[in-house]
């Protein structure tokens, strides 16, 4: 484990370099340990694929070095915790291609496959939520078939519609809100992934399993 500063308000605990199962389990175990017993002065925790980032209030933690020493102790304790259960299976309906997924053709060209083969591969796989972030409720999904890996767009779009399903590098996910975004858009879901007034406000939680279910444009419009 290496610790490094993220600006002057956070410290990144890097738990591995590869997005492999062992690293993911370490990230989840450390996150659970921290959430269970928050160290004094820690204001926020951001688990992601290979790291856990801890935001702190400098006035409360004393110094960066002191916090790092404390976090090393926490990480040691977390390593001895039992692994997590698999999480729920959540099905997400997606209308692929055309105006719902304007980059499906580019992804197909990059993979040297047909659009139908891309849809079959994307909806055939089972994914796991490795982090929620970017915007509220956005799931970072592990398990994208290697053939579908596609670099992010050179310039991010200034507006991606809510529900857009995209591929960015080795990752796939769903945009819960209309935001800027740099991923290749291959489809769109009619489901709402973030609802501020509900508890919890996010449809998905870290650790959930996800499958995409292809639907037609007609079914998309009728979905309410």
């Amino acid at each position, binding site marked *: 484990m290496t610790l490094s500063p993220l600006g002057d308000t956070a410290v990144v605990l890097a738990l591995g370099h590869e997005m492999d199962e062992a690293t993911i389990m370490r990230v989840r175990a450390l996150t659970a340990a921290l959430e269970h017993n928050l160290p004094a002065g820690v204001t926020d925790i951001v688990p992601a694929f290979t790291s856990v980032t801890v935001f702190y209030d400098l006035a409360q933690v004393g110094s960066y070095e002191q916090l790092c020493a404390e976090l090393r102790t926490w990480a040691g304790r977390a390593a001895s915790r039992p692994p997590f259960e698999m999480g729920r299976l959540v099905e997400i309906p997606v209308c692929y291609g055309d105006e719902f997924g304007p980059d499906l053709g580019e992804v197909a060209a990059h993979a040297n496959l047909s659009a139908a083969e891309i849809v079959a591969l994307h909806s055939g796989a089972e994914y796991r939520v490795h982090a929620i972030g*970017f915007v509220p*409720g956005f799931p970072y999904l592990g398990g994208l078939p290697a053939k579908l890996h596609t670099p992010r767009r050179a310039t991010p779009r200034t507006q991606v519609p809510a529900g857009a399903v995209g591929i960015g590098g080795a990752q796939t996910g769903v945009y819960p809100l209309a935001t800027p975004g740099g991923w290749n858009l291959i489809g769109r879901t009619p489901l709402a992934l973030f609802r501020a007034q509900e508890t919890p406000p996010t449809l998905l939680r870290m650790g959930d399993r996800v499958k995409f279910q292809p639907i037609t444009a007609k079914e998309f419009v009728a979905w309410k």
Partner: protein
Amino acid sequence: MEMTVIRAGVLTTVQDAGRPGHRAMGLPPGGAADAFALRVANLLVGNPEDAAALECTLVGPELVFSADTTIAVGGASFESFPSWQPVRVRAGEPVGLGPCRTGCRGYIAVAGGIDVAPVLGSRSTYLPAKLGGLEGGALRDGDRLPLGTAIRSGSIGHWHINPSLLPAYSASPVLRVIRGAQAEEFDSVWLKAEFKVTSKFDRMGLRLNGPKLARTKDWELPSAAVAPGTVQVPPDGQPIILLADAQTIGGYPKLAHAIGVDQPLVAQLQTGGTVRFQEVALAEAQRLWLARERDLGILREGLAQKFK
């Protein structure tokens, strides 16, 4: 007591100190883009420094109050209203700020604070998810906002705060930064160059324009936490400085991070401004932060005397 928005301006929202603690579900802490200005404006009217105030962008709103009160404006300076001092305003008399003279974002604190319902622990407006503030949106002409009860009163006199307490607001600041995780993957040209602020700026971040920053490595990074102040470089080589409503996680290389005491300078940049970067050590950034907090503590104590 309430405040009516006669004219809302370009983009005026309710903001407080933000809602930390929800990043794990992807919700950024948000809050005032220039948190220093919010805190001082609140202190000037006798509020707790994290009370909800208005954040306006480029053009100030025109407001009218249902009872006599005290307001203070901080951050950007405006053509028709003084900055960094408490001002008594009369019930029913319209108060207009006019356009921004310097800076980008002004903070209008009202004695008692703006009393909209908190969402997930904060009154801050988070526009992308339409939550907080007044029904999750920017203010519109005719909106009415409930105000809290002022907890302090007393004669305010004619005075303003010592300008030496303020951040070095400028249209072309030198931003002090800490190296980012991928800084060594970029040529050091970014520390010598001047970057222009483009027209693409909002509460999530500012896109800059300057020499194309080429990365020596081309593999994709696993997405990890980013924060307000993070300077990231997308594949087009033009850096983005993140602001208060920035995403919680990002996949672009992190070149640097604006230090806490200089983040108000980022919030006050607008199109046509320029930025240079200067690297400082983490220890120096944190020393400056604690010094700023001490100064604010002294200001808080001094103002408490005035409100007795």
